[in-house]
């Protein structure tokens, strides 16, 4: 009889052992989390302290000084990052939103599956490979490095991030809203742009923020597309344009066609230079970059969480 067998087990001893295992293992998972968060806090605190010392107004409004001299700023990198991230946003956001609309209106067509699959694959393609692609397609064709090439590769990096979050956010829009507009006879595209998009706007903006954060932090794809440029200064280019009476397109062309620098690119170069001043400055660049990227991330995630709980 099973009953006999069961009563042979020393239940109290078994319980004690199991309770102990339970406590130890559950405690271990908590310990794992704490250990994993140590680097996070370590990095943030260290960068804040070390980089904070070199942050001042000059740092933001001046170009770099020649190697080996102190002072100078990272205006070139801030402007370069700005230009390339704006370009990346212009290139990636419209197709990303349209693709997300496709996914929400055509849930299960073969193309929808293919898009979802490709989006996941694209998100997994190493950014350095995307850089090689940008080099082959744009730099080789134009025969020079440029902010434009940097913007294109960053757009490819942003694309899957924006598609994914936009799809999720569009799905959260109550279907009645869309049906209501269509029932009034409004065409699909007007419904999408005037009804669905505004309803999902906050969520989509957070998705774009995540994409921008990702693109701003990327270095590898810029190494051989934007290359770097210590003298990248938009103000000067505009001034020259005005002096020579050039059209706005010429000026824009020069802004986009020159090699450009970016915050992470500058950080990378400074970190490995033999001049201690440059290394010190690289911590300040890290501070600026990290604060920007992390605050975008946190802001976006808090918004997404709020929106999700509001809709459920």
């Amino acid at each position, binding site marked *: 009889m099973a009953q006999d067998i069961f009563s042979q087990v020393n239940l109290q001893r078994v319980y004690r052992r199991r309770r102990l295992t*339970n406590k130890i*293992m*559950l405690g271990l*998972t*908590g*310990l*794992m*989390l704490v*250990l*994993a*968060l140590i*680097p*996070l806090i370590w*990095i943030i605190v260290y*960068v804040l302290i070390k980089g904070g010392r070199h942050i001042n107004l000059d740092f933001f409004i001046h170009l770099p000084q020649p190697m080996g001299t102190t002072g100078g700023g990272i205006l070139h990198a801030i402007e370069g990052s700005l230009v390339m991230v704006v370009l990346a946003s212009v290139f990636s956001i419209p*197709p*990303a939103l*349209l693709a997300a*609309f496709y*996914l929400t209106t*055509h849930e299960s067509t073969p*193309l*929808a599956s*293919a898009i979802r699959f*490709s989006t*996941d*694959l*694209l998100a*997994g*393609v*190493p950014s*350095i*490979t*995307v850089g*090689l*692609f940008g080099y*082959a397609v744009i730099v080789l064709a134009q025969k020079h490095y440029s902010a434009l090439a940097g913007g294109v590769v960053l757009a490819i990096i942003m*694309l899957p991030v924006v598609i994914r979050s936009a799809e999720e956010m569009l799905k959260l829009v109550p279907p009645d809203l869309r049906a209501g507009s269509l029932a*009034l*006879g*409004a*065409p699909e*595209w*007007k419904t999408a742009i*005037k009804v669905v998009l505004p309803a999902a706007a906050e969520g989509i903006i957070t998705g774009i923020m995540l994409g921008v954060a990702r693109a*701003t*932090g*990327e*270095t*590898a794809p810029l*190494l*051989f597309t934007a290359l770097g440029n210590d003298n990248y200064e938009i103000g000067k280019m505009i001034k020259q344009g005005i002096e020579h009476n050039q059209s706005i397109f010429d000026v824009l062309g020069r802004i986009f066609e020159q090699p450009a620098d970016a915050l*992470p690119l500058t950080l*990378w170069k400074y*970190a*490995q230079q033999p001049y201690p001043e440059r290394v010190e400055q690289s911590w300040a660049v*890290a501070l600026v970059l990290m604060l920007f*990227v992390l605050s975008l991330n*946190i802001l976006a995630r*808090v918004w997404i969480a709020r929106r999700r709980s509001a809709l459920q």
Partner: protein
Amino acid sequence: MAINEMKKTIGISTTKERFPYQKKLATWLQHGDRIWSLLLWLSGLLVVILVAWIGWRLWIESAPSRAEFGWEFISPWAKASWNPALDKFQAWPSIYGSIVTSVIAIFLAVPFSVGIAIFLAELSPPNLRAPLNYMVEMLAAIPSVVYGLWGIYVFLPLVVVPIGQSIEATLGQIPGLAIVAGGHIPVSGLSRLAAALILTIMITPTIAAVSRDVLLAIPNSQREASAALGATQWETIWKVLIPNGLSGILGAVILGFGRAIGETMAVTMVIGNTTGGGYSILKPGYTMASIIANEFAEAVDALHTSALIEIGIVLFFLTLILNAIARWLVWRVKKQVMGN
């Protein structure tokens, strides 16, 4: 007319007011919906094409290298040599570097990630859950270069060098293991070990977040059934939830492996970047991603460029396959759970 006024305000074109050919055109376009569908379709297609285009383009650009070196290029048994001056290129040392650093990172990251996933999905008090999730996601969001900078000046001297020295003193003394764990770690700490440890930190949040989602997707009835039989919380986690989500967690691990293989900047900054270095993890080396990052901009020779692009294509296909497998595994467990 009142009706036309209404139509205007809700955005319907009042076709009656137009000329016949315009009306025809508007109808044919279904008031713009045909163009709209076409735009949606094209944008979707763009994503699909982009992946193929990247692969195809790199394949074309790597032609000279492929023609020159053939399969020898990636063979572990071919004579390893990377010499731009002699136009000799063989990728095995960097492939080895990628594999060894990523494998070590995975082995170290998995217990942490699964532990974190369990804590976040099953144990965390509700009011701690959101902040902890944010912190794990922040760990994933810190830019790679920042990891690299912190790695060079803080993590390597303070953590990696001591660990390297103790590995050298223990594992390095075992005859069979000396080849992978022998030799002195450089004082700078620049080594494959440094890359592996930085990668561990960087991929842990990725694996943890996906595993957490897998655990959260398992229905509560499974937890109740186990608890009702007198299982402790750990027994429920270990004997029911983990086996239930195993293929999804495996998917998360493979995803993390793909991340590790493709990670560039932090690795380039701490691995030392040399084609020598034998097989020891205590020595500097290259990974596929880091050799491209380090040499591509300075490569003037066409064959050198092409060889680096060929490494890029190996990297591309490897991560493509890993991601496809990972996606399939995670998708399977979610589907199975939904159907349950």
